[in-house]
């Protein structure tokens, strides 16, 4: 199998090829641009650009990957080469021999300085290694790691092989015995692989079981929570709900933690299994190769590893003329691999020819030395085909000529390092590489002799240099990657058992993958890599100890044997030198790191409490009404006189000055961290964006549609199984702040509220620049405050109206009695007096009514802005308020004149204190208005269709409070969901096998079924309603268009309301809008006329309405787009105005051009689907309860739609409480009485005339 490095190289070539191809395609497309339809061209162009971008990014990514690999390789090589510092070693040697204390101190200081410098360099290199490895993919990192680990393993193998050292004095039987032992060792190695594999598989199985259990438990928790919520209904208190939610959230998180842990364990075990299997395969391959070469596997492995050593590889590369760069190429590696294999064969042949390899025996001489290692120098000799003449002298110091040494040096390109003591007693260090294959006799030396010689040779002679060279060759072996063979198999077990693949606990590893306290997710990849690099030196078996205080002779005794290996430790002669200490090479093991703790915060849910309960409104009546009617008149339903007037209490004298506006605002916001967007819109956190998307955005090549009704998901990426960020379940601080602020505002005194009402208005709101949530809550409270005032005034007005109308009835009764000829003079006098008493104070009462009405209106819509809004509602007739209440009639001059006469007469009477005149004109004026008021039901609810809209009490005509309108537009939003419901129901019908429910649920479903049937029927019967709804929507769009034009005009003229530029632009805008409105209105009327004439049926009319509404919306969209271009730069340069909401709304429309047309079509479809709902059977519903939650959700949405349709039906059919109040009823009743009396009189007159 090709290495990952090679695969990446291949991928780069493929990317380049594909890029060239795409460029060709692009050029081709551009040449035919004129002949291609615009839309098609743009689409193709965009697609090719996208693919080019994709390919380019992939190419960059692959190139970077290779560069990172090279960098990581260099960094690790440097790190390894830097571990030993020859300079410090030399200084230590000097220190050991120096007697002068001053010089010794100087040397010590220098050693310290050099050591620090060295450590710093090592640390820097370690950081570089970690960084560069972190950038690699898992596969490449592992490949690189393995290449270095192989070389580490080589060293370990050497150490292991030291154990069964063959002493020269032993006979051939011992050698044979040793071979048997080795064979057994090999078997054990395979057994060890098998055991490890079994262990890893067991761990995987256990983890998998835990994982499945956790999933089941989680599902059970969700089901349990859902069941409780459904069965036990709403919670009694907020705390109860909080506790419930928190408890289940906690359980979910805990179980999810277990699930995550099991999943990680599975992943680790899987990695371990893969690693072992790979090693087993490599080892099997090695054995097979050894079998083919008829060499025992241990010998074969040594030969292969020797050939794979850096020096030999360098020689191989040199033969083939491969430089530093080309040798890393795929071809270079393949070439080197072929040559290396050839070298292996030649070495084996040579060994066999020399009789060194005989059958399965291993010689201690020549090419294979005493410890079983293959001599590298000899191997190089074999490669070059010439011998380096070496010989062993009497002093056992082997010499070669200077020329030969230089040749070796140049060939090997190895740095010369001074090293006085070998790593262990069995290395080749004091010994020459032995004789060349053609002259092996002179190379017969023993290990002990060699070692002794080595330690006693402390000169700088050429011989020592050669020794040093050889030593260096040994110690630096392996910085190059092997030639592709899986020679790491032998020592791979160490990695496997102690490396990252071991499923150690997180604590032990010092790594906790998961969430950081800041909510970000911590990946483990880098840590794993670092662990491997860091742990390896630590895990190396300790090198054979070098003891300097024991004579060599004792080596043959049992004393002092290494208990682990049975070997006699090497003991050099005393030289007075400081014993060699291997340089500290260990990186800081990752296991020493403090494990990062995962913080799981309890979720906090804050619910808003109910709005503050208002105090009962005190009813103030300043005048006591007449207690008893003097004459019998038709009693009014309201118990007018029973209420005792509440006398206004004297206001307490203020001892402290009134609090100012800013003081109040300061107090209510104290300690609250209110953000600009608090309460405004949902906030996102923990945003993570994939690099490719960012780059695409940056390129600016695309515009996007946001699609939020998505297709079915088939497969989710595993990594999405992640924990929630800490934030998501943590702070509800923002909500708490709002709650606190709301509470504080609700507790404000009347005096404070009055201050805010009067002072915090208009431009002051903008000047102060408070967060919008403060404005929102203040507005809410002030609205309550104002409405309580209006309510008080209305109560008073109601009382005064009652008095006035009761008085007029009494008055008329008294007058009838006075006019009656049967009444005695005495009684007449009494009635006259009663009349005077009755009329007393009436002018004052009427004046108070007029004044109170004005005051109440001011409370509701005071200020120039309110005035402007009222005018807009009345004049444009486009807002729902306007549509409901504004009149669209020609001016009735006669009516107006009559009104004016009554008004003047009333005012004159009040001024003159003429109670009777005041009362009579007042009653006439009110009756006139009432008689000209006509209210009819419509899509807009009860609508005023008369010439006047009589509203004796102050009314808040706010469409936002109109439940019908709210329902109407919500209905539009959920109709698409209703269609999904019907489709789900149809699908569910076929799933008869899942019909299994208990009786209780069936009963409940039966009830639901009835409701759904009824609601379905309602929906189907509400085509007309939907049509009107669409018309309303279309008209709303025209209004919104007008508003946007106005906004754009303001923005364009820098909000210079009075400027000429503003007026010009405003006029142009209004002209456009008027045309827009008139056109839309005419189009709707045209459809209505066609329907009324029977030219089209209702369904066709509805479809036409939908199309027209969509068209209207598109026009609106165009206005929106045009205005947005003005608004955006304006918003950027005018931070003092918070235009986020406006801009957001406009951008939404721009981003969702099809949303409204889809909704309109959905309305058409849903009314057709209503028939299905109406005929739906219980059997179709029952299976839904067992279906996935998504389908259940659609059912709920469908039911909601049906419920809304029902609401619409109720609203349309309702008669009560849609217009007027007790006073209007009273006036209507009086007017009807008057009309009845008039009719009776006329009838009597006509009878009299006929008589």
């Amino acid at each position, binding site marked *: 199998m090709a290495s990952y490095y090679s695969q990446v190289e291949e991928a780069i070539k493929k990317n380049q090829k594909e890029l060239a191809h795409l460029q060709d395609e692009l050029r081709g497309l551009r040449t035919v641009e004129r002949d291609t339809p615009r839309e098609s061209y743009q689409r193709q162009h*965009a*697609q090719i650009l*996208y693919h080019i971008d994709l390919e380019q990014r992939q190419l960059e990514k692959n190139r970077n990957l290779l560069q990172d690999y090279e960098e990581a390789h260099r960094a690790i090589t440097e790190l390894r080469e830097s571990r030993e510092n020859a300079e410090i070693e030399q200084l230590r040697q000097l220190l050991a021999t120096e007697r002068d204390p001053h010089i010794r101190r100087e040397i010590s200081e220098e050693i310290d300085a050099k050591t620090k410098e060295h450590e710093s360099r090592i640390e820097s290199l370690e950081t570089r290694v970690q960084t560069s490895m972190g950038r690699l993919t898992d596969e490449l990192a592992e490949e690189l790691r393995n290449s270095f680990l192989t070389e580490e393993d080589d060293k370990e193998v050497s150490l292991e092989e030291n154990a069964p050292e063959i002493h020269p004095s032993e006979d051939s039987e011992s050698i044979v015995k040793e071979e048997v032992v080795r064979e057994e060792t090999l078997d054990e190695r395979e057994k060890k692989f098998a055991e490890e594999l079994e262990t890893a598989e067991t761990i995987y199985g256990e983890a998998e079981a835990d994982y499945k259990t956790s999933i089941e438990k989680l599902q059970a928790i969700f089901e349990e929570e859902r069941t409780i919520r459904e069965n036990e209904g709403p919670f009694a208190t907020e705390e109860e709900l909080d506790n419930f939610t928190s408890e289940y959230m906690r359980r979910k998180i805990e179980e999810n933690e277990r699930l995550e842990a099991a999943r990680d364990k599975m992943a680790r075990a899987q990695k371990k299994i893969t690693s072992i299997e790979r090693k087993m395969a490599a080892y099997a391959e090695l054995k097979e190769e050894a079998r083919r070469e008829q060499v025992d596997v241990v010998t074969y492995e040594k030969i292969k590893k020797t050939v794979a050593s850096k020096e030999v590889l360098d020689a191989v590369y040199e033969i083939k003329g491969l430089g530093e760069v080309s040798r890393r190429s795929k071809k270079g590696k393949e070439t080197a691999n072929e040559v290396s294999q050839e070298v292996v064969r030649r070495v084996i042949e040579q060994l066999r020819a020399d009789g060194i390899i005989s059958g399965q025996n291993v010689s201690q001489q020549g090419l294979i030395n005493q410890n079983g290692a293959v001599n590298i120098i000899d191997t190089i000799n074999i490669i070059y085909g010439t011998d380096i003449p070496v010989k062993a002298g009497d002093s056992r110091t082997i010499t070669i000529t200077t020329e030969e040494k230089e040749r070796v040096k140049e060939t090997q390109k190895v740095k010369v390092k001074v090293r006085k003591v070998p790593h262990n007693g069995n290395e080749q260090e004091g010994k020459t590489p032995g004789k060349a294959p053609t002259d092996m006799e002179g190379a017969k030396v023993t290990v002990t002799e060699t070692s002794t010689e080595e330690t006693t040779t402390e000169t700088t002679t050429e011989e020592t240099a050669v020794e040093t060279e050889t030593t260096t060759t040994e110690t630096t072996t392996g910085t190059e990657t092997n030639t592709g063979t899986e020679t790491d198999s032998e020592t791979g077990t160490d990695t496997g058992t102690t490396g990252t693949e071991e499923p150690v606990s997180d604590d032990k590893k010092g790594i906790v993958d998961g969430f950081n306290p800041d909510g970000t997710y911590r990946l483990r990849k880098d840590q794993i890599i670092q662990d491997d690099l860091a742990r390896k030196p630590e895990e190396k078996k300790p090198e054979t100890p070098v003891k300097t205080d024991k004579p060599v002779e004792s080596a043959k005794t049992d004393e002092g044997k290494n208990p682990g290996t049975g070997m006699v430790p090497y003991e050099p002669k005393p030289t007075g030198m400081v014993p060699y200490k291997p340089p500290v090479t260990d990186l800081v093991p990752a296991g020493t790191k403090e494990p990062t703790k995962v913080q799981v915060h309890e979720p906090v849910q804050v619910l808003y409490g109910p709005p503050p309960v208002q105090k009962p409104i005190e009813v103030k009546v300043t005048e006591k009404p007449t207690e008893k009617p003097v004459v019998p008149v038709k009693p009014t339903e309201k118990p007018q006189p029973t209420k005792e007037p509440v006398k206004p209490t004297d206001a307490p004298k203020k001892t402290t000055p009134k609090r100012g506006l800013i003081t109040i605002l300061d107090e209510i916001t104290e300690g609250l961290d209110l953000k600009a967007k608090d309460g405004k819109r949902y906030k996102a956190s*923990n945003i993570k964006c994939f690099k490719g998307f960012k780059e695409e955005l940056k390129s600016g090549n695309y515009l996007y549609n*946001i699609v939020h009704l998505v297709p079915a998901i*088939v497969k989710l*990426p595993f990594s*999405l199984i992640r924990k929630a960020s800490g934030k998501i379940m943590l702070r509800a601080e923002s909500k708490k702040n709002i709650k606190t602020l709301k509470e504080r505002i609700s507790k404000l005194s009347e005096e404070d509220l009055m201050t805010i009402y009067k002072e915090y208005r208009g431009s002051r709101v903008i000047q102060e620049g408070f967060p919008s949530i403060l404005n929102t809550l203040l507005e809410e409270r002030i609205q309550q405050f104002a409405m309580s005032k209006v309510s008080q005034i209305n109560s008073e007005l109601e009382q005064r109206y009652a008095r006035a109308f009761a008085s007029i009835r009494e008055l008329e009764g008294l007058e009838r009695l006075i006019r009656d000829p049967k009444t005695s003079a005495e009684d007449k006098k009494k009635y006259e007096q009663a009349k005077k008493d009755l009329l007393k104070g009436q002018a004052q009462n009427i004046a108070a009514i007029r004044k109170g009405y004005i005051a109440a209106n001011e409370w509701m819509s005071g200020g120039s802005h309110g005035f402007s809004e009222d005018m807009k509602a009345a004049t444009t007739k486009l807002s729902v308020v306007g549509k409901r209440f504004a009149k669209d009639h020609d001016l009735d001059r006669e009516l107006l004149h009559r009104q004016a006469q009554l008004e003047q007469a009333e005012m004159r009477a009040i001024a003159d204190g003429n109670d009777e005149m005041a009362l009579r004109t007042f009653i006439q004026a009110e009756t006139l208005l009432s008689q000209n008021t006509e209210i009819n039901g419509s899509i807009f609810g009860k609508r005023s269709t008369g010439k006047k809209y009589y509203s004796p009490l102050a009314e808040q005509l706010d469409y936002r409070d109109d439940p019908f309108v709210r329902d109407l537009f919500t209905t539009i939003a959920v109709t698409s969901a209703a269609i999904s419901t019907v489709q789900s129901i149809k699908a569910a019908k076929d799933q008869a096998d899942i019909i299994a429910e208990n009786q209780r649920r069936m009963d409940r479903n039966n009830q639901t079924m009835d409701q759904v049937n009824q609601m379905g029927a309602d929906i189907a019967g509400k085509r007309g309603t939907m049509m009107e709804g669409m018309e309303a929507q279309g008209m709303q769009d025209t209004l919104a268009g007008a508003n946007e034009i106005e906004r754009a005009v303001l923005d364009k003229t820098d909000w210079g309301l009075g400027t000429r530029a503003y007026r010009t632009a405003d006029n142009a805008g209004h002209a456009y809008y008027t045309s827009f409105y008139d056109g839309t209105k005419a189009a709707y009327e045209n459809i209505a006329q066609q329907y009324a004439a029977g030219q089209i049926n209702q369904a066709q009319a509805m479809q036409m309405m939908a199309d027209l509404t969509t068209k209207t919306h598109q026009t609106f969209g165009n206005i929106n787009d045009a205005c947005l271009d003005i608004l955006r730069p304006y918003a950027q340069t005018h931070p003092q105005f918070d235009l986020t909401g406006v801009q*957001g709304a406009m*951008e939404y429309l721009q981003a969702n051009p099809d949303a409204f047309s889809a909704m309109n079509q959905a309305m058409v479809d849903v009314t057709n689907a209503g028939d299905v709902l109406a005929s739906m059977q219980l059997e179709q519903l029952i299976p839904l309860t067992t279906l996935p939650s998504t389908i259940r959700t659609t059912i709920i949405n469908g039911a909601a739609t049906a419920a809304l349709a029902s609401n619409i039906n109720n609203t349309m059919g309702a008669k009560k409480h849609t217009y007027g109040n007790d006073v209007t009823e009273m006036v209507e009743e009086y007017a009807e009485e008057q009309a009845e009396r008039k009719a009776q009189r006329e009838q009597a007159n006509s009878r009299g005339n006929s008589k």
Partner: protein
Amino acid sequence: MKEEKIVINKNGKDIECDVLFTFDSEDTNKAYIGYTDHSIAANGRKNIYVSAFDPVLGYGQLEDITSEEEIAMVRDVLAEIDRQSRED
């Protein structure tokens, strides 16, 4: 972030989509994911699908986003990502 894929069923066919972004919202206690099949709509714009999912369970079904508040938030997130991409 490492590249991720998601498979959707569109017109009866399984289509592999690239995950573009993810985010959470403490207002809704949900996590969200944006992804694309690189399809170009009739208006010449690229379609981005956005769905919600339970961040605690993680592997549950993706949910449609239906509320205007959530859609507004998605738009905010895209604007933020766009802003960041220009700053990078």
